């Protein structure tokens, strides 16, 4: 038998150099500024693109190999989950509302991220970031697809998920995550990298994925847990890209520092406002809780983000100033958000409920400074009213913040009894804001934010009714028309969990799974 002599392989560093910089060339008959037209206008100065290196030194050939393995593992589990009626193993059917929130609020963002990274990668003259952006762009479309595939099994049995992408583009509260990403992809390529690559992926992603995924694990949802972990395995690479991009930009020129600082301030706040939905999910929607929003914020932002900003201090980068206000809000955020959804449950694509006694005790223990004083009394009142048959679904549309598009529900930092209102006059119109930070973001780029598609304004302007609707006929019910436009069915996809088809069906099916009928 012939002896197999192993060929001398290139080392990781050499392989990376050959497969990234080695594939690049200098154009000879086109000008660089014509090929890369978006690279200068943001004011970021780059002197040497070759200084950028992916710390994982991942090349496209290795990328395909490991991504294929992740897909094989994921689909094996999704098949097993579906074959085994895995949806009946979740803690209780309330849990499925977190899946509805995920598919309509988060998965469409994965698709937009795919487009964003494809665009940013095309815009950069350096082969290092271009290859890394290509990989992340492919990751993001993989996430969108695997999430749709995993959650499609829930859609066979439960309501509210049937037209998630249509909902994402229309439903009032979904304009919060949608406008966040639209804001990012309409920025320049460097701002996009700082907004999504750094602020969202590095600073905030742990607060999105880890709670959703460990929430799924705690609540018996193997399908969501598996796509979550599969996506999360790409996330470690995205975080590294985000941090590397920031360090690279800051090292290239001191003039970049103030520009980057402004972006970090803006996008940490923008991202945090979107995470309001996650805060509410963690504290109210998971039947079996993992940790409170406040605890997650302390571990993943204050501790971990603190270490990050300490490390970046050598470049002159400071902790974003909004961190102070976020610290004041952490006792209130999730409660104010859930109260709002309980109010507007008639216009949402998932169900709401009031926490039971055990859950109230958990909330009181996790939020000793705020829950019993400010939130328990109103929940008890609402519960009493519902028991008397007076469940009130609010049909009056709220005022929205022009920047984050969240209803003006947040209280003054440090005073939980007073709603926070800010306003700005711009070119003869008045604009409203939920906070100083959202107001400052507007004031810096008013021409961008005056164009915001605010769902409430659009409804009042008559733009959110099905074609041919006549709002002037007697007895016109605007909410019914809006729900039709959302493609949601009143009484099936919305309102309280207690009266839902989901609750009834889940109990019946679980009964069938354990008895011989």
């Amino acid at each position: 038998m012939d002896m197999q002599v192993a060929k001398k392989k290139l080392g990781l560093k050499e392989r990376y150099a050959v497969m990234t910089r080695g594939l690049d060339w200098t154009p000879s008959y086109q000008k660089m500024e014509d090929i890369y037209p978006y690279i200068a206008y943001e004011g970021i100065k780059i002197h040497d693109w070759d200084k950028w290196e992916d710390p994982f030194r991942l090349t496209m050939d290795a990328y395909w190999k490991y991504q294929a393995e992740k897909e094989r593992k994921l689909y094996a589990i999704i098949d097993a989950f579906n074959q085994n009626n895995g949806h009946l193993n979740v803690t209780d059917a309330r849990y499925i509302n977190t899946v509805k929130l995920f598919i309509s609020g988060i998965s469409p963002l994965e698709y937009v991220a795919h487009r964003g990274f494809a665009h940013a990668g095309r815009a950069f003259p350096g082969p290092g970031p271009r290859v890394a952006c290509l990989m992340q762009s492919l990751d993001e479309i993989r996430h969108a697809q695997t999430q749709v595939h995993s959650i499609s099994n829930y859609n066979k049995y439960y309501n509210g998920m049937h037209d998630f992408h249509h909902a994402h583009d229309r439903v009032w509260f979904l304009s919060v995550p949608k406008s966040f990403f639209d804001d990012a992809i309409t920025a320049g390529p460097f701002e996009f990298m700082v907004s999504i690559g750094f602020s969202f992926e590095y600073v905030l992603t742990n607060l999105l994925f880890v709670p959703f995924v460990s929430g799924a694990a705690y609540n018996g949802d193997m399908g969501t847990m598996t796509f979550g972990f599969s996506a999360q395995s790409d996330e470690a690479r995205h975080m590294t890209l985000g941090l590397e991009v920031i360090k690279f930009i800051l090292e290239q020129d001191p003039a970049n520092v103030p520009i980057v600082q402004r972006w970090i301030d803006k996008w940490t706040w923008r991202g945090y406002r979107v995470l309001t939905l996650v805060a509410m999910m963690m504290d109210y929607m998971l039947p079996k809780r993992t940790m409170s929003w406040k605890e997650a914020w302390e571990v993943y932002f204050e501790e971990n983000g603190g270490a990050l900003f300490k490390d970046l201090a050598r470049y002159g980068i400071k902790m974003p100033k909004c961190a102070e206000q976020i610290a004041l809000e952490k006792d209130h955020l999730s409660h104010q958000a859930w109260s709002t959804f309980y109010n507007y449950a008639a216009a949402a694509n998932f169900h709401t409920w009031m926490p039971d006694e055990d859950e109230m005790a958990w909330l009181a223990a996790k939020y000793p400074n705020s829950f019993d004083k400010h939130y328990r009394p109103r929940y008890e009142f609402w519960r009493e009213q519902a028991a008397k048959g007076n469940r009130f679904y609010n049909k009056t549309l709220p005022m929205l913040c022009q920047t984050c598009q969240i209803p003006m529900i947040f209280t003054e930092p440090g005073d939980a009894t007073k709603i926070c209102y800010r306003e700005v006059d711009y070119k003869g119109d008045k604009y409203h804001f939920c906070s100083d930070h959202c107001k400052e973001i507007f004031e810096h780029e008013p021409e961008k934010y005056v164009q915001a598609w605010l769902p409430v304004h659009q409804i009042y302007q008559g733009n959110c009714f099905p074609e041919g609707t006549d709002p002037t006929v007697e007895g016109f019910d605007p909410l019914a028309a809006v729900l039709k436009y959302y493609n949601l069915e009143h009484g099936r996809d919305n309102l309280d969990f207690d009266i839902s088809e989901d609750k009834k069906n889940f109990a019946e099916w679980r009964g069938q799974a354990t008895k011989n009928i």
Partner: protein
Amino acid sequence: MSTVFLALQTNEETRPIIEAILQDNPNAVVDEQPAMVKINADGRLVVRRETIEEIIGREYDLQEMQVNMITMSGNLDQTDDEITLFWKS
């Protein structure tokens, strides 16, 4: 020094990796969570290829870890032999 961490999925592939990390990093602390193992260390954490290979008894490419990684914190540097996570301050 600030804490760096690495979180891996809990499964048969990561069990020897975690064992290797604990051998090579006396300052590492394991935090076991549902379906996830988080390894915290003060300032610096090293994953060494050789230690993993000794435990599993076969050649190992550190890039295989991509499949089971959940999240990490710190600056990262990867070579053929090591993955290092570190804070500079």
